[in-house]
Each structure stands twice: as C-alpha cells, then as structure tokens.
C-alpha cells in the first residue's frame, strides 16, 4: 500500500511544491542576473536582497483584479492558462532526479514514473501546451494577442521539429526511450552524451530557447512590438498561470537537457575513477546543479542578445537547425550501426 | 507620403473664385502695410548668380528681390510658383534640391494677408534662398509636393494652422490638430481663450454661443 499509493503521492506533492517554488525563485534569479549584467541591483526591498520578492509577487498576482475583456470567449479565455500550465507540470513525472535512494528508510527511485516511452511522452505532452497559447490569444478578442499567438504557435511548431530530431539522435545513442535508461547508458559508457553529440546539444538548446519563447527568440512576447504578447489581456491569477508555465517550461528544457546530455544525476567524468571523491555528493544535487547552470545560461543569453525578427527566426529554424538535426540523426545512425 | 500616390483631382478641392494675379506694383504700394519690410538689397551687394538666368528663364517670375541679415528672399507671384521652383531645383547653377522649411505668416490687415515662406537649401552649392508667395484669404496655393516631396507635411501643417489650401496636394488633411477641429490656430484672429471645441472661425459667433451656454447654466 505504502509502496504503490502513498510514496507516489508524496513524490508528486514534493515535486509540485518544489517546482512552484523553483519557478518563483527562478523569476527572482532572472531579475537579479539581469540586474547584475546591467549594473543595477535588482529587487532589494522585500526581504534581505529581495529574497522574499517572489512571495510578494505571488500575493500581488493573486489579489489583483482578474479581468475578462468584453466580448472575449469566456470559457476558452479561462481555460487557456490552465491548458498551458498542466502539460508543463505533468512532464516532470518522468524526469529522474537521481538514482534509487533511501529516503526515510524507504528505497525508491527519484522519479514519479519511468515509462518505456518516456522521451516521447515528454515531447507529446509538451506539444499540448501550444493550445493554451493559441486559444489565449484568440479568446482575448484583441488584435495584438491574436498576432502574437499566431507567431508563438508557428514558432513552437517549427522548432519542435528540430528539437525532436535531436532527441531521435539521443535515442539512437542510448537505445531506449526511457529517461532512466538513457542516464544509465551514459553511466555504462562513462561519457556524458554532450561530448559525443555537441551539435545535437546545440540544436536542442537553441530550439529550447525558441520553444520557451526566451530571448533572442522572445518574439511572441516582444513588448516593443506586440505590447506583451498573447497574454496582453490577461491579469491577476490567470496571468500568473501563464507566467508560471513559461518558467516551468524553462526548467523542463533544462532538466531534460541535463538528463539527455549531461548525464542526469551522474557526477562529472563518471568514468574517471580518480574523481571518485565527488561521489560523496548525492546524485540529485548533481542533477539540480547542472539544471541550475543551464538555467543560468538561459538568463545570461537574454541579458546579452538582441532579438531576432520573425522571418529570420523561421529561416534559422527551417533552413539551418532542421537540416543540421536531420544530418546529425543520419550520421549518428551510421555511427551507431558501424561502431 | 510619396508623390506617386494619385493626387486628388483639383476639381475635388473647393476652389476659390479665380482671381487675376496680383499686379507687380502692389507689393510696396499699399500705405504702411503691417508686414515685413522686405528691404531691397543694397546696391553695392553682388546679387546671387542664379538670379539673372532665372529672370531670363521665367520673365516676371520674381516680382521682388529682398535681402535682410544675409538672407536672400525672392517674392514670387502665386501662379508662377511652380515654374520658378522647378527651375530653381533643376538648373545646375541653382540646384535648390532641399526644401528646408515651408511655413506661412499671417498679416491680417493686408489685402494679401498670408505670406507663404519656402526656405530652400542647395546641397551641392551650400546656400539658401527663400521664396515668398502672397495670398489672399481663401486663395489656394499650388502645391510643391511634386517638386520637393518633403513639402508634403509642411503643406499639411500650413493648411492645419492657417487654412491655406494647396492645389494638387495628395493628402491634404489636418496634421497636428484633431481632425474635427474648428478654425486655424495660427491665424492672428484666432481667439486665445475659451473652450477649444466651441471655437469657430468667427469669435463673435463663439461669444454668442458661450453667453447662451452661461444663460442656460443659470436657469
């Protein structure tokens, strides 16, 4: 009973709370990192160094008036943020945060579920989030959000192809769709896949930036052009849900990248015995550390680069990344067969 | 706006009654006009080299030449403006290819109450000249947007502020004031106080309206 019901439920609860907290602090981190890059201080007022700022933000967003525009499609308008958020959270179920570990005397794997089509599951669930984007823009009954949501969905669909292609080459490397087995395969080879597949990682990362609408691909939310993007008309808690989903998606991208390319819970250089000292650090800490570094790169990129234009973005996606990804898959397949 | 846009046919614009061009002598004739003195250039000053060919090419195109604090001004009759302007732009010795500014000045008591002022600049020769056209109230000026596209917004602004129409302008709308504004604020007889929405061309009219409104308030 405990094994089948209570443990998964507890895991889910811990995961949800963890993610929501992580999102809140990721927002703070983003503001802080940007501020440091831009010779500012960032939030400083709420709590020491603004550490309680997320709490204040959450309270503000919850108690703000929740406005539905006139002649908006009320049902769809309400549903859209939920549609965006749910896939972003559900994806975490298959991400392995660490190897089997003893937690309070119970030996358990540090993931909610290990399904044999894990990677495909992530891709397919993540592709559902697009509905929220499109419908949110459409239901607002306003031109700018509509334009932005069309952009967002076109962007998402085109970059999904490239990202999925890189995942295919990773599947070829690992010979499995299960997230746990992919990590184990890296352990068996004693090699993080990023060193075997740097191109795939690059494409995945760029595609991930584009899929989460991050700079330099933040066109759907380009406030200079579209005054805020598909959620322009949203306010209060529903806006908060969109916001939450965006940052949760960032974490998903970083966590999946960690699992696929950076050996998940493995320590650096898992094959070098001389570094065995590093094993003292538990696997999940390695995992979180790597995810954090990747997230930091997300923020860093945003503070540095200007924004692509819509057609340039599409050209980059279709004419550069997708051909590269397909070539990478072919080369990988040949290599896997030959070696 | 580009000149390529189809211009409104001149017939679409309400035309004032056709008037004979102002006689040359009138420029100085009326007694003590409250207007710019338009001083004649001193005799010992060399005249710009494009003046003689201009007068040759467009006889009667320049009704008066004036010089003041280093600026040359050519006063041009209304119906010769396009001809003179085209010559000034295209002829190699003048080449006034840059329309620096276009504005108007209102001198109400004068019969031809408006001065249209064209400030031109020649990029190759690096010098300036001003053209001046005198207009009666209600008279339309020929548009120079075909010569200098830059004049487009200037003419709109003059139309907005002075109510001077430009024949052949592609897009003559108000530019700074709201589209439904009454009156033309830069005219000297424009009332300086009162609610803008009620301002009419005739201040007396406005006074009547205001008094009526006040009376209504008391009742």
């Amino acid at each position: 009973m405990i094994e089948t019901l209570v443990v998964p439920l507890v895991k889910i609860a811990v995961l949800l709370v963890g993610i929501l907290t992580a999102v809140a602090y990721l927002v703070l981190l983003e503001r802080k990192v940007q501020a440091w890059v831009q010779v500012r201080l960032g939030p400083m007022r709420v709590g020491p160094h603004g550490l309680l700022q997320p709490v204040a933000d959450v309270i503000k967003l919850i108690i703000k008036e929740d406005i539905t525009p006139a002649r908006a499609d009320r049902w769809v308008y309400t549903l859209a943020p939920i549609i965006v958020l749910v896939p972003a959270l559900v994806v975490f179920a298959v991400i392995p945060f660490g190897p089997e570990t003893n937690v309070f005397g119970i030996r358990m794997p540090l993931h909610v579920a290990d399904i044999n089509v894990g990677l495909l599951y992530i891709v397919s669930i993540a592709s559902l989030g697009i509905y929220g984007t499109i419908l949110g823009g459409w239901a607002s009954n306003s031109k700018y959000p509509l334009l932005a949501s069309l952009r967002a969905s076109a962007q998402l669909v085109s970059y999904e192809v490239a990202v999925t292609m890189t995942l295919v080459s990773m599947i070829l490397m690992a010979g499995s769709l299960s997230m746990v087995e992919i990590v184990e395969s890296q352990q068996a080879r004693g090699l993080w896949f990023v060193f075997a597949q740097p191109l795939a990682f690059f494409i995945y990362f760029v595609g991930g930036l584009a899929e989460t609408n991050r700079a330099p691909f933040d066109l759907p939310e380009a406030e200079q052009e579209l005054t805020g993007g598909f959620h322009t008309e949203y306010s209060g808690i529903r806006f908060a849900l969109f916001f939450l989903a965006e940052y949760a998606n960032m974490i998903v991208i970083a966590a999946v990248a960690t699992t696929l390319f950076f050996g998940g819970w493995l320590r650096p250089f898992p094959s070098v015995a001389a570094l065995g000292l590093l094993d003292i650090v538990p696997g999940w800490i390695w995992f979180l550390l790597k995810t954090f570094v990747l997230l930091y790169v997300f923020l860093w990129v945003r503070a540095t680069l200007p924004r692509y234009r819509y057609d340039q973005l599409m050209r980059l996606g279709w004419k550069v990344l997708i051909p590269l990804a397909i070539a990478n898959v072919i080369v990988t397949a040949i290599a896997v067969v030959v070696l | 706006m580009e000149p390529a846009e189809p211009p409104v046919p001149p017939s679409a614009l309400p035309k004032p009654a056709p008037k004979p061009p102002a006689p040359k002598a009138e420029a100085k004739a009326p007694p003590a006009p409250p207007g710019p003195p338009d001083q004649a250039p001193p005799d010992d000053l060399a005249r710009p080299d494009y003046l003689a060919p201009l007068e040759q090419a467009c006889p009667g195109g320049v009704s008066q030449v004036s010089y003041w604090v280093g600026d040359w001004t050519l006063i041009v009759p209304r119906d010769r403006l396009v001809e003179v302007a085209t010559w000034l732009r295209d002829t190699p010795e003048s080449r006034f290819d840059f329309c620096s500014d276009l504005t108007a000045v209102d001198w109400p008591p004068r019969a031809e109450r408006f001065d249209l002022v064209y400030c031109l600049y020649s990029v190759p020769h690096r010098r300036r000249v001003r053209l001046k056209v005198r207009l009666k109230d209600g008279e339309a000026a020929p548009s120079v947007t075909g010569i200098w596209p830059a004049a487009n917004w200037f003419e709109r602004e003059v139309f907005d502020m002075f109510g001077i129409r430009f024949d052949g302008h592609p897009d003559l709308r108000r530019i700074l004031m709201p589209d439904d504004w009454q009156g033309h604020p830069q005219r000297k007889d424009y009332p300086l106080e009162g609610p803008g929405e009620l301002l009419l061309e005739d201040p007396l009219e406005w006074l009547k309206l205001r008094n009526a409104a006040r009376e209504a308030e008391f009742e």
Partner: protein
Amino acid sequence: MTDPHPVTATRTPVQFDTDELVINMGPQHPSTHGVLRLILRLDGERVVDADVVIGYLHRGIEKLSESRDWTQIVLLTDRMDYVAAATNNLGYCETVEKLMGLEVPRRAQYIRTVLAELQRLASHLVWLGTHAMDIGAVTVFLYCLRERELVLDLFEEYCGARLTYNSRRVGGLPADLPVGWDRKVREFCDIVDQKIVDYEQLLTQNRIWLERTRDIGVISGADAIAMGFCGPPLRASGVMRDVRKDEPYAAYEEFAFDIPVGAAGDTYDRYLVRLEEFKQSTRIIRQALDGMPEGPVMGKVPRLIKPPAGETYHAIESPKGEIGFFIASDGKSLSPYRFRVRPPSFCNLQVLPKLVRGHLVADVVALIGTIDIVLGEVDR
C-alpha cells in the same frame, strides 16, 4: 464637396479579409517613443502601407511664443526636443542674434559649442539605448542611460537643471563655467570613448544585430534629400550635409572634425554614422576645452530685446538633424510676430511610411528607432 478633409473622404475604404489586417500602433505603445500613432496595413506580417498620426503632444509652442517676450521663449524651446534642450536653446538664441546683429563673445561661443556637443552625446546615448532596446538588447539601454547620467550631472553643475536647461541667453550665456568643470568634462569624454568600445562589442559585429539592421529601411541619397531627411539619417545615405560644416555657427569653424557618411542608407549605416559621431563629438569637446579663450560670456545686449522689423531663417545641426528657426519681427512688440520651428524629427518622421513599406512589423519598431524622433519636437 464640402468635406474639409477631401483626402480622407476619397480614400478607398480599408478591406478586411484573411490577407490584410489593419492594426493601430500607439499612441500608447512601448516602442513608439512617446505618443506617436501608426496605422499599419499588414499583409500577414508585412507592412503594405502606413499612416502616421501625430499631434498628441501638440502644445502650440509656436503660437505661445507670439505672446511671450524674446527671453522667455528660450524656456519654451527647452520643451520641444527635451532630449536635446541645449541645442534648441542655441538655435533660437542664434536666430535672434542674427536678427539683431549681435556679437557674441568668443568664450561664450566656445562654451556653447561644448554644451551643444555634450548634448549631442546625451541625445545619441538615449537614441542608442532605445534603439537597441527596440531590437531587444535591453542591456545596452541601461549602459547608455548610465553614461547619459554623467552628461546630466555635468549640465546640472553648469546650469542647475538636468533636462530643461534654459542654458543660453540672447547674446551669450547666463553663467561662466564652474571651477573644475572642464576637467570633469575631459574625464567624461575619456569614459565615453571607452564605453563606445563596449557598445560596439555588444552590437556592431553581433550577427542578430546585423540581420536586424542591414538592408532595413534603405533610402538613396537623392530620395533622402527630396524627402527632406536631415541629420545622421541623411548622412547615412551618403550625402555630405552637416550644418556644422556647411554653414558653420557657434565656434565650429575653428575645430577639426570629420563628418561620417554612410553608403548603403540602411539602418545599420545610420547606426554606424551615429556611433562615429560620438567619437567626433568628444574630439570637438577636447579641442574646445584646450583652446578655451578667456573673456566675458555675455555680449553687449540692449536691456530690452526688441529686434528690428524683418524676418530670418537660421538653422543649426541638432542631434536629430537640421533644426531651423524662422522668426519674423514687426519691430514694435516685445514678442516675435511669428515664431516657426523647423523640427528635424518632424521632417524625418515624414519619411517613415516610405521606409517601412514592404518591411515586417518588427522592422517598423527598428525604423522608428533609427530615425530618432522625439515627439515633443514633432508636435511642438
């Protein structure tokens, strides 16, 4: 046909269908730099036509000036291009001086030049920051404003104000330089020269920046002249035209500086031209400080400023382009009979519909940025 706006009436009504969408950009829009309103007709994301609607900031400065006396108008000119108030002051004062035939002391001319060039730096910094931010590089914006603060500090030390300086008088200047000010200006010039390198590192060779600005809003030199482009955008189209060189005013004749000229006439060239102007401005400032003559800063000015009857037009080079003043005096009253400004932003903005046609919505934002307008000046 009695419609006062014949053109609006004869325009073909806009068609709405799958292909064309009419959107309204502004007057409340984060990247229209104030209260500019654009009506864009889009085919997908491509701009088919654009109409510029201005006047939201119209305060009637020209009309107001007709009931202010000659000294009070300096204050009004501050409110036009509020990013470059000192340049406006200079243009106005020089025009009145020209009308009255006043002689301005040499020291005052030098200080005026320094202030004008500092103002050019400040204005260009604001331009670079907002332009980069429009294209998505937020960091550059904050870096630029950091440097602009230093200019504002210098102005504050000189005249006590940070934005609307009222820092010139007809016939000279209100005050001499504070002690030690020139040293601070030199330090500032060194800082700017260093920081320009930073900006160039962030933008000039950045692939995204290149793709966003190259071949965007191309305009040929002949077109630019005909359309009334002025200032850096005109020079970026390859036209050597700078009032500072062509019709020297203040003390510009005495300094050596170059006029950067572009070739392609696109947004990238406009960026490069302005970036080079930073360097030329610091060069002028250093020369002016080195050769600063001694003497009074106020010339012999009658107690009552009342120019004789007559009219004149005088233009100077503001950071945005040629700012001209046409002033008519009737020789009797204490205020100008007609006060007219030729606002460079107004003339440059006129070209915008031509520039944006055929480009994408995102480019519209970049193009508004590249022509560097200040709505306070457009609308007056």
